[in-house]
Structure formats: structure tokens, C-alpha cells
């Protein structure tokens, strides 16, 4: 049963790559302001689930609704617009543009949405401050540490005030302390802005920042907290 008030809902998702089944009847739902951890071993299908939920990869079958709209039937252009304006993304590696400064990186989604440079960079600076990395705004990604770079990536994911943030192993490349800070800042910021966070992780301590946990096993999901 789909919980009332869900922002993003998936039911009975199937996805195969060649002869490999990645999703085999997976389901998912999330409320505004909720942080849901998606856990599972390597190859369980958790990243495919995230890519389907974010409209990056279409499922072979199943239903996918975001804010009442059918995400599968939507045109590519509309889906791309949605990803730019309503979704934010944080990945494990290589998400910042190396030629741009950190401030310019954070301002980029706003610039792509048509916001003027000055206004975009001002908002970007506010987010860098919130993520406690305002002092590296003028530096390029190669000149900052992994933990700082990941905070910049979080700032960039949140700068458009997305309604859903998709985070795929956001602390995977960080040491324990930096990882903890990133998770704290990410979940604090998301909760303040009422954004939903889909958090893919295999680390229990990272999952402990969530409100709820979904386990993916052999392409099937299990809502652990709701079954007890």
C-alpha cells in the first residue's frame, strides 16, 4: 500500500540489462522532508533503483509517479527539466566541473535555469556558507580536499531548492570524520528545506542518518521498518 502524501512513488519496477535482472518488482515511496536510506550489497540493484526513481533510466515496466505525474510517460524534455529544477544529485566522485571555481560550480544549476550570474553566485555563496566551505569559493575542485569538494557538491545539489535529493554513496570516498560532517550538513539542510532525500549507501553509520531504510536484495525491495 502506498503511504498517503508520498512525493515520489514507484511500484513493481522491473529492469534488465541484457540477461541481467537489475530490478525485479521493486517498490519505493518517500514523503517531503523524509530521508530514506536504500541499502544492499554490490549488484543488488540499489543504484538502478535510484536511477529509475530520478528519471535517468526508464524502467522496463512498473509505475513511477512524482508529485502525481507519470514519470515514465513524460517526454524526455519534461523529465530533463524536472531533473534540473526539482531534483538534486550528489554522487561519490567526479561531479564538479574542474574548470570552474567552487562558487561557479554551485551557481551552475541556477545559471542553467536562467538566473543572472551575480544573483546565482550570491545564492551559491550562501549555500557554501551553510555547508561551512565559504572560504574555498574561489578555488577550483582540484585545489580542495575530498571532504570540502563533497560539501561543494552538496551545496550544488541543494542550490535550486530541489524537492528531492538523490545521493548515491555520498560519503564513499571520504574519511570517517568528513563523511559524518557531510551527512550531518546534508540531512540538516534537507530537513530545513523540507526536501526528501533518497540516500543510497552500504554504510550502516550513514544509513543511521535516515528516517527509514529500504533493503534491496536481488532487485527486490524490502521496507524493513514498516514490516516490523
Amino acid at each position, binding site marked *: 500500500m502506498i503511504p498517503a502524501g508520498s512525493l515520489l512513488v514507484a511500484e513493481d519496477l522491473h529492469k534488465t540489462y541484457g540477461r541481467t535482472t537489475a530490478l525485479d518488482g521493486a517498490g519505493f515511496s518517500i514523503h517531503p522532508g523524509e530521508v530514506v536510506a536504500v541499502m544492499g550489497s554490490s549488484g543488488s540493484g540499489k543504484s538502478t533503483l535510484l536511477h529509475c526513481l530520478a528519471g535517468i533510466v526508464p524502467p522496463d515496466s512498473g509505475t513511477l509517479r512524482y508529485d502525481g505525474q507519470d514519470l515514465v510517460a513524460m517526454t524526455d524534455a519534461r523529465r530533463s527539466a524536472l531533473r534540473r529544477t526539482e531534483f538534486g544529485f550528489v554522487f561519490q566522485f567526479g561531479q564538479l566541473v574542474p574548470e570552474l571555481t567552487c562558487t561557479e560550480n554551485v551557481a551552475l544549476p541556477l545559471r542553467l535555469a536562467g538566473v543572472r550570474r551575480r544573483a546565482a553566485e550570491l545564492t551559491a555563496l550562501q549555500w557554501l556558507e551553510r555547508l561551512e566551505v565559504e572560504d574555498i569559493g574561489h578555488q577550483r575542485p582540484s585545489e580542495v580536499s575530498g571532504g570540502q569538494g563533497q560539501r561543494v557538491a552538496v551545496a550544488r545539489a541543494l542550490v535550486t531548492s530541489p524537492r528531492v535529493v538523490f545521493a548515491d554513496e555520498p560519503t564513499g570516498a571520504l574519511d570517517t570524520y568528513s563523511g559524518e560532517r557531510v551527512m550531518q550538513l546534508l540531512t540538516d539542510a534537507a530537513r530545513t528545506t523540507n526536501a526528501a532525500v533518497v540516500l543510497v549507501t552500504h554504510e*550502516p553509520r550513514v544509513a543511521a542518518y535516515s528516517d527509514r531504510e529500504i533493503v534491496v536484495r536481488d532487485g527486490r525491495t524490502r521496507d524493513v521498518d514498516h514490516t516490523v
Partner: protein
Amino acid sequence: MSIGHTLLALLESGPRHGYDLKRAFDEKFGHDRPLHYGQVYSTMSRLLKNGLVAVDGVEAGGGPERKRYAITEAGVTDVSQWLAQPEKPEPYLQSTLYTKVVLALLTGRSAAELLDLQRTEHLRLMRILTDRKRQGDLADQLICDHALFHLEADLRWLELTSARLSRLASEIGAPGRPGPGDQKKAGA
């Protein structure tokens, strides 16, 4: 670890004498600390008194050590309830959890569900500690972190064990497969 529940679960495969039970226990779980005969007989007397086992026969020669015990329906239900109850998350639970997993496999119950349930219980406590850490001062953070790292170690062990259930089942000679479909009903 609950010796009573462990001996009870070992009786599910069929009636045994006290010395048989001790041998089975030592072989599977008593690597470091084998049971004393006294412990076996005092435990069996208690289980007998509570109606969880019955005397299935007494060999000629008498003496308490000659009694053969069989598990009762109430005993099977008691084992089911014990296995279905997650352990209170705390460091160094492995021996209890390991015992439960092995017994679930040996008695045809779902070891996978047992591990899932325990994992949920662990994560629930980890969320509480993480929340306390967010709101606390540095001392709170350090204390919570210590507990969180230990709980995380348990969780990693739970995950690793989940992935190795089939192998463990075949190594201990458990009947059937370890999946949820093999769960045995309480009292069955």
C-alpha cells in the same frame, strides 16, 4: 547465550540423552567453553518442570543421566519465540547471534528473517544514537560514536552472515534452504 533455549532447539531434531545434548552443544557452540554435565542436568530439570520437555524413556541402570528427553509442543513454541525475538543491540553479541542463526538453520526456520529482524533492531538504536549525537556536546558525540562503531561492526557481521547462509547451512548439515520460504511456524 541462553543454554536452555539452545538445548531445547537441539532437541527438535529428535529425542536425546543428556550426554548427547552436551556433545552436540560442545561441538557446535562450545569451542571455548564446553558445558559441564551439571549444567545440562540442572537445565533439563528446569525445562522438564516447565513442561518444555518430557522424559521420552529411561534406560536400565537408572540415574538422571540415563533419561532421554523429547521436546514438547510448548517447547517448540518457546524456541520459535526466542528465535523471533531480536537481541538487545549491544557490543559482542556475536556468540548469541551465531547460536541463533545455526539453530534456525538446524530447525528449518528462516535464518534470513532472523538476521533481517536483528539488523532492523540495530539500525533503530543507531538512529537514536545518531540523533543524540546531533543534539549533544562533544562528550555526547564521542560516547555515541563509540557505541555506533561497535553496532556497525555487528551490522557488518549480520550482512556477511546473510551472504553466507547457504554455505553455513550446508556445512552444518541443515535441512532445506535458509530463505524466508522455509520458515517453520511456531508450534508446528
